[in-house]
């Protein structure tokens, strides 16, 4: 029986694996050659200003394909698709690619200038640092104190179930790689994570695939709060979305690093290196930071290390990719979050 299931799964997997899914593909022709092919998890709209600015400096044709982080992994790990640069918010998957020898080394003045926590093995380079935040609906919190940390949040949820029942949102970590990354880092950083998940489960928490939808739901008032939302997205929406409040916890803030790497199969590694240099020095282009809403890596951002914790690149990230570990974590999480 079990083998039959496995066979079925494998067949299904093989069918899927025959081609990874690209959500969107854009082409930016330029006179220069060779063509730089980028596979990325960032929306094409978000990334377009960067590509335009890059092409102003280096007239190189660029193809920009958008895929989910799992698809990026599949394309590079299983299919060895021909891309020159992989940009992903899934730090764990990027780390696995580098650890398993599927990334090329690259070093330049720009990458040397990066802080040590923003690169690994000269193969993975971070160019943004995006915190996980709490997004609140201002109306819902009219009469309530703003939670400052996770213990405070737990107390608040317990004390006011009538306000929060069915009005809490968070990532469905089974679906979202980023949600899984944030949740696992939470579980590692604090004991209160599982209590919080329990409490959220009792209050019929709604699960989402993406930060954008959670922010929308909070803005509409469907949700009173959303936990572990990507801060950069919330910040970008703050101006045109009235009624939302962003809270950074003061016990700790997990910071996701958006990273780039050059796959082993790259055919234009020089062009990819130029793009990495460009991304690594984004802090010198406030116009691009404003246009994309992507907070650049800044030296000294890890100064307040007790609270702001950039997720550490390195073999530690492989732990939560372990099949058994993932199974165990998801089982615990599901049993906590789905109680009804």
């Amino acid at each position: 029986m079990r083998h039959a299931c496995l066979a079925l799964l494998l067949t299904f997997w093989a069918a899927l694996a025959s081609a990874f899914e690209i959500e969107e593909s854009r082409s930016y022709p330029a006179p220069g050659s060779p063509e730089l092919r980028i596979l990325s998890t960032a929306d094409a709209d978000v990334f377009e200003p960067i590509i335009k600015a890059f092409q102003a400096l280096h007239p190189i044709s660029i193809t920009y394909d958008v895929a989910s982080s799992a698809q990026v992994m599949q394309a590079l790990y299983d299919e060895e698709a021909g891309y020159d640069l992989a940009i992903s918010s899934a730090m764990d998957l990027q780390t696995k690619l580098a650890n398993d020898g599927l990334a090329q080394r690259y070093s330049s003045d720009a990458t040397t200038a990066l802080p040590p926590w923003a690169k690994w093995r000269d193969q993975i380079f971070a160019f943004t640092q995006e915190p996980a935040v709490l997004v609140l609906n201002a109306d819902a919190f009219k009469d309530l104190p703003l939670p400052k940390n996770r213990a405070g949040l737990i107390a608040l949820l317990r004390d006011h179930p009538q306000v929060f029942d069915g009005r809490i949102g968070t990532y469905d970590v089974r679906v979202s790689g980023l949600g899984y990354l944030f949740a696992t880092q939470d579980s590692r950083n604090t004991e209160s994570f599982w209590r919080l998940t329990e409490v959220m489960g009792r209050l019929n928490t709604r699960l989402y695939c993406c930060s954008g939808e959670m922010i929308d739901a909070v803005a509409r008032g469907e949700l009173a709060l959303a936990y572990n939302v990507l801060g950069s997205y919330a910040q970008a929406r703050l101006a045109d979305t009235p009624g939302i409040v962003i809270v950074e916890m003061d016990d700790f803030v997990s910071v996701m690093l958006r990273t780039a790497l050059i796959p082993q199969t790259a055919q234009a590694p020089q062009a990819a290196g130029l793009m990495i240099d460009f991304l690594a020095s984004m802090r010198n282009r406030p116009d691009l930071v404003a246009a994309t809403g992507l907070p650049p890596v800044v030296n000294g951002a890890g100064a307040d290390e007790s609270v702001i914790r950039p997720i550490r690149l390195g073999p530690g990230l492989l732990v939560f990719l372990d099949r058994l570990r993932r199974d165990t974590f998801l089982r615990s999480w599901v049993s906590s979050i789905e109680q009804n």
Partner: protein
Amino acid sequence: MTAARAPSSIRRRLVVQLALVAALLSVVFFLALRVVAERATEATQDNILAASATSIADAVYTDAGVVRVEIPYSALSMLGTVSEDRVFYHVILDGETLTGYEDLPVPETRGAGRDPRFATTLYRGDTVRAVVVRRTLNADRIHRVEVVVAQTRLGLAAISSRITTTATAIGVVFFLAATALSTFAAQNALAPLSRLAEAVRRRGPRDLRPVTAETPTELTPLVGGLNGFIARLRAALTRSEDLIVEAAHRVRTPLATVRTQAEMVHLQMEKPENRAALRQMIRAVDESSRSAGQLLDHAMVTLRSDQLETEEIDPADLLRDAVDRLSPTADLKDIAIALDLPDATLRVRGDAILLQNAVRNILDNAIKYSPADTQITVRLVPGATCRLEVCDQGRGFVVEDVARMPERFSRGSNVEDVVGSGLGLTIVRDVAEAHGGALDITPNTGGPGACVTLVLPCS
């Protein structure tokens, strides 16, 4: 200094040999440091690997009869803290992969038990250090669990290259310091030899005292031999000087008797040819007696030069005294002696007897070689050095003779008709040199003849 320039130098040999030893020690030191340090870093990596594998093995559990493992975050993250090496793991249950990298091989090492086993192998194109930790798990039946953790050796290579750099730097510094010290040590060890060589080199030509400088025991036989040699030489010289003194004495006394007798006979002779023969005889006796006197003088000068009895002397007194003594002889030949002395009193440090002897010999020579009815000028010229000049109007010197004139028994080529010993100027030269001065022979600028000058340092 002399030793370093010599074709075969003890110091160079010492330095080269010590430098070779230092180089050898540096290399040994370098290798030892590298081996020890690399063992230590390898042991460190092994320890971390073992800790990682052990913590994974400890996280294996059974859940409703199913064996599972929950890999601790720290198990892999600890491997990432030291270096940025790639990390692989493989958990095997009863020979089947439970989780991890399925193709990661189990290190093939002998032995069993719970101790971690290590091996260095090739995996995914990189050299990895792998560890296996074995556990048995007692669920419904006994399960065998193997945990393999492997790490590439990039960090190790980086540490190793740092160690190599440091070890090289230390080795080079050690070598340079040792070489510098050995140069210094060689110099120091050879210093007594140089001192001895210098002491012997600095000796005057007639200094035959034994070497008394303090010498290390290694040089004692050499110095002993040298002193024995000097003693023999000194004895031989003394013997010959004694012989000369003795001979001169023995000759002079009978000659005086012969001269007195001859003069008495001369007074009694009536025939002019007989008187002429006797006068010649008397002259010959005089010359012989003078030669014997000069031999005595020379022997005395040689002896006294070794140990000068110096005192402050007015050179004017010397000249005055010599002129007084030899005026009668000069008068016999109708030679006038003009004494030209400066007003100021000069001072010379020296042995009075030797200096008198020298001045007398110069003046005696001048009188002897001056024709009758001429003038001799005796002059004292002050200056940086005191010049005691005696100028005659005689036949002068042949230029080619001047250089060899002061040699013993050497005489001018134009004086064969005059009887002489060839010792006069030798005595003067020896005295001058014993006093740190010189003998100057120049032609007389004011006419015929020559000037003989005793140059002495003024005090």
